[in-house]
């Protein structure tokens, strides 16, 4: 049986209609009607963001999670969990907009071109000016052979392959340019006998100093970062970033894998991330006043799931024990194959990863941070939705990943948000009155609390006794700031009168639990890693922290909550996005590219779930700052003072 479902869309004021069979989900009807609705949890009924209001007709709710009794009485339902069994009229409330511009877009990282970079020696890309003899009745060589001859005689390139698409264009280019052209080739390997691949043929000769464009791209679960690089000078000319539009279909990798495993889900994921990259490429090119096809090479990194989804390779096996990827070292491809709108013949190089949960973002991070060349034991930590870490030196490298959850990115915390305008980024609590003060990104009214804000809030609340060491809110304190709520005790950071939307901003017992779990997983991850190879944290000479996470956090606070180990501050180094930087190095220099492969090859992956060691370490870290206080002497001293 078919039912008619009509939607009234708040955002546009328009309406839309879909006809769907009995038993369809409301999201399917929305899709059918062409109405966009966010599903950050990937349609698992976990996040409650796809809430709609059924104003006429009845719907069957499989799950009423996040809905109150009153909500249900008022007709509210989760679109991904509600089954259509009759005609309906549905009101679609305004969707939370993903802020267009990211904070990281404001601050470009300073990037130095590696010493000794020389386009001629470091690159496998070559750009050559060719002057061809025009054909005549005596010289009836075909266009391609003529070009190949010129390459052989004028550039010493023995063999050259050319794609069909390019072949279709070369005749016109050669004639319009009157046989004076610039060829751009990928020499593929260092082997001079191997054929080169023609990427582009451009009319007229090109001046040696004219830029030659390429891109280094990091596909993060949350953010895609795009650097536009001039291969001639090696300089990064543009850095931009944008949310990965897959977020609308799941905030973490597992949700995305689940979504991608549904029918059509894989294709949708693939096109979403490609769209994000394309729009970044377009913006970057526009700002530099170049055209996207001028970009002739890209080096890509990302966690293994992101790379699988980008390539359209099924990722389901990543999620399931024994957690095997389809590929750790993808072959070279061209932009055309995955629909990237740069030069369609551009070489696209997805750097190699190690395992399901240790991907190319980490091998690239090791490359750019130099852990693999270090004389001393170094710990490299990349915190995003997952926590990945590498421990080692020039002799050995071990790595592991732990599921920290996205709490430090503001998810899983009721008033959590990403680090953008309106986020509380730092909190202080008065130890006598328990009154807080805070700083908001952008200086306006607060809308929520971001990761760095949560870390400092947790630290302050713990040091002032608002929280006990287990994270219980001490509701017996004499202040209105602490109170009972349905999720246990909570602490009010900002009263409704101060906030953007008029609601109190609070941190509850459940939020604290999620944060504790995240920090405990990370702390347990690197302590177990060190333990497994018999190294003590005290032997760690440097702790390098990658990811945007590290950029804004206060080390002291992070140590106070037991997220970072209690070691001298000078041992910590915050490196920002080490993944894109590694992609950039590999893009520039074939030796660096070979080094990434070597790093991936010699890194030993340690599966934390193999025994109880991780669990034990995790449980002992589920405390502020840690069950074993002797590991945190400076925090103990700070506590004694208060």
């Amino acid at each position, binding site marked *: 049986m078919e039912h008619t479902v009509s939607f009234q869309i708040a955002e546009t004021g328009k309406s839309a209609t879909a006809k769907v069979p009995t038993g369809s989900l409301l999201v399917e009807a929305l899709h059918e009607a062409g109405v966009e609705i966010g599903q950050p949890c990937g349609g698992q009924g976990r996040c409650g963001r796809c809430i709609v209001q059924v104003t006429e007709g009845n719907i069957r709710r499989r799950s009423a999670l996040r809905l109150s009794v009153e909500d249900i009485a008022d007709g509210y339902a989760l679109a991904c969990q509600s089954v259509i069994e009759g005609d309906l009229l549905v009101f679609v409330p305004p969707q939370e907009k993903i802020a267009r511009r990211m904070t990281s877009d404001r601050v470009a990282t300073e990037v130095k071109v590696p010493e000794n970079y020389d386009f001629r020696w470091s690159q496998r890309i070559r750009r050559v000016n060719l002057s061809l003899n025009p054909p005549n009745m005596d010289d009836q060589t075909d266009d391609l052979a003529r070009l190949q001859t010129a390459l052989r005689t004028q550039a010493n390139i023995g063999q050259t392959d050319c794609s069909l698409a390019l072949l279709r264009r070369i005749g016109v280019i050669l004639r319009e340019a009157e046989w004076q052209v610039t060829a751009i080739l990928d020499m593929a390997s260092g082997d001079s006998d191997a054929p080169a691949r023609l990427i582009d043929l451009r009319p007229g000769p090109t001046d040696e100093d004219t830029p030659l464009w390429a891109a280094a791209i990091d596909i993060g679960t949350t953010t895609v970062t795009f650097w536009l690089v001039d291969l001639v000078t090696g300089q990064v000319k543009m850095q931009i970033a944008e949310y990965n539009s897959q977020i609308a279909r799941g905030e973490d990798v597992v949700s995305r894998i689940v979504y991608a495993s549904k029918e059509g889900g894989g294709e949708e994921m693939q096109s979403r991330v490609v769209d994000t990259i394309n729009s970044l490429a377009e913006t970057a090119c526009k700002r530099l006043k170049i055209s996207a096809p001028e970009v002739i090479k890209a080096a890509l990194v990302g966690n293994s799931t992101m790379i699988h989804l980008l390539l359209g390779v099924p990722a389901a096996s990543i999620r399931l024990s024994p957690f095997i990827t389809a590929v750790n070292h993808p072959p070279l491809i061209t932009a055309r194959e995955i629909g990237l709108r740069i030069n369609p013949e551009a070489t696209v190089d997805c750097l190699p990863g190690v395992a399901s949960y240790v991907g190319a973002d980490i091998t690239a991070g090791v490359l750019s941070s130099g852990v693999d060349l270090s004389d001393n034991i170094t710990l490299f930590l990349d915190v995003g939705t997952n926590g990945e870490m590498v421990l080692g030196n020039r002799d050995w490298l071990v790595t592991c990943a732990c599921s920290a959850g996205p709490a430090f990115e503001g998810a899983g915390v009721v008033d959590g948000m990403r680090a953008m305008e309106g986020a509380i980024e730092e909190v202080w609590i008065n130890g006598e009155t328990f009154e807080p003060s805070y700083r908001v990104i952008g200086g306006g009214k607060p809308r929520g609390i971001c990761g760095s804000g949560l870390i400092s809030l947790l630290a302050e609340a713990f040091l002032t006794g608002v929280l006990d060491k287990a994270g219980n809110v001490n509701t017996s304190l004499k202040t209105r700031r602490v109170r009972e709520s349905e999720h246990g005790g909570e602490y009010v950071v900002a009263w409704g009168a101060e906030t953007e939307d008029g609601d109190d901003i609070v941190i509850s017992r459940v939020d604290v639990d999620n944060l504790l779990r995240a920090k405990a997983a990370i702390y347990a991850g690197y302590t177990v890693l060190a333990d497994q190879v018999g190294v003590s944290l005290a032997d760690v000479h440097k702790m390098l922290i990658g990811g945007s996470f590290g950029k804004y956090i206060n080390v002291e606070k992070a140590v106070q909550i037991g997220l970072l180990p209690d070691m001298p501050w000078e041992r910590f180094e915050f490196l920002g996005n080490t993944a894109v930087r590694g992609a950039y190095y590999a893009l520039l220099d074939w030796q660096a590219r070979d080094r990434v492969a070597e790093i991936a090859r010699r890194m030993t992956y340690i599966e934390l779930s193999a025994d109880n060691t991780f669990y034990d370490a995790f449980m002992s870290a589920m405390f502020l700052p840690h*069950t*074993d206080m002797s590991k945190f002497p400076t925090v103990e001293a700070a506590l004694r003072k208060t």
Partner: protein
Amino acid sequence: MPIEIPKDKWPGKIRTVTLGATAAEGGTRSKTVAIGGEASLPFMHFENPTPNPPLVAIEIKDRKPEDWSPLLAEVWSEAMNDPGAWAKAAEATGADLILLALSVTGADGKPNTPDAAVAATKAVLGATGLPLLVYGPGQVELDNELLVPVAEATRGERLVLGICEDKNYRTIVATAMANGHLVTARAPMDVNLSKQLNILISDMGMPADRILMDPTTGALGYGIEYGYSVMERLRLAALQGDAMTQGPMIVTPGFEAWKTKESKVGEGVPESWGDWKERAINWETVTAVALIETGATIVVLRHPESVKRVHRAIEELMAV
């Protein structure tokens, strides 16, 4: 060939805790008992003397429980109807301590009341001179509601009040501190959680020598190995000098064992389980002795025959 016996030298030891208070000390008990003080793994007399033997407590209820095994109902019979009489009978079997477990409801089916809880506690105190432990029914609000008046009405007795858990410890700890009692801190079979709860309770200002640790155990066949290893690890941590694991451990093998089908029922079970009564006693005894050998300082039992057998085992284990 002369062999050097490997002896462990530990920097730490188990804390000595005293239960109960005599008239001279502000209570009414005929004697006090000390537990703990060991500086070695259990019964390694060749390394260090064991200053105090492990103790056996008998669990009684403020009213006749409906869900106890017929074997227990048979052996305690009439005494189960009167906490005072039950306590006396328990003392007569040789128990070292009495544990009074308050019920959720009274005999009339209505929720237990503070007055009834205080009355039952006083009846037990009047009937026996042994030190006493009083546990709430295990529901957060009711526990707090019953235990506070009990603690106040028995000020100075050095009772052990329980059970403190990580989500509900403040009220019980506060009243124990105010009224000179001790507490039991129970965490669910995890070394870290046990330690964490001790830290939380200590952070409230409770002196360490007034905290007993209950790391929780399963019965034989129902997870005893987890409790066993958690206790072994806690004992090792304590000996290694970790102050927050040095509290004496109390466990409830009686409660755990009598919950199992093996002990509880005699009909409709496989023949290969053997004689019901002897099996039930073995179940409780084996659970208790295994835990005593990993470091339990107090075992709470239910059947008098088990008490006898466990006492005999302790006597042998204490022989130097």
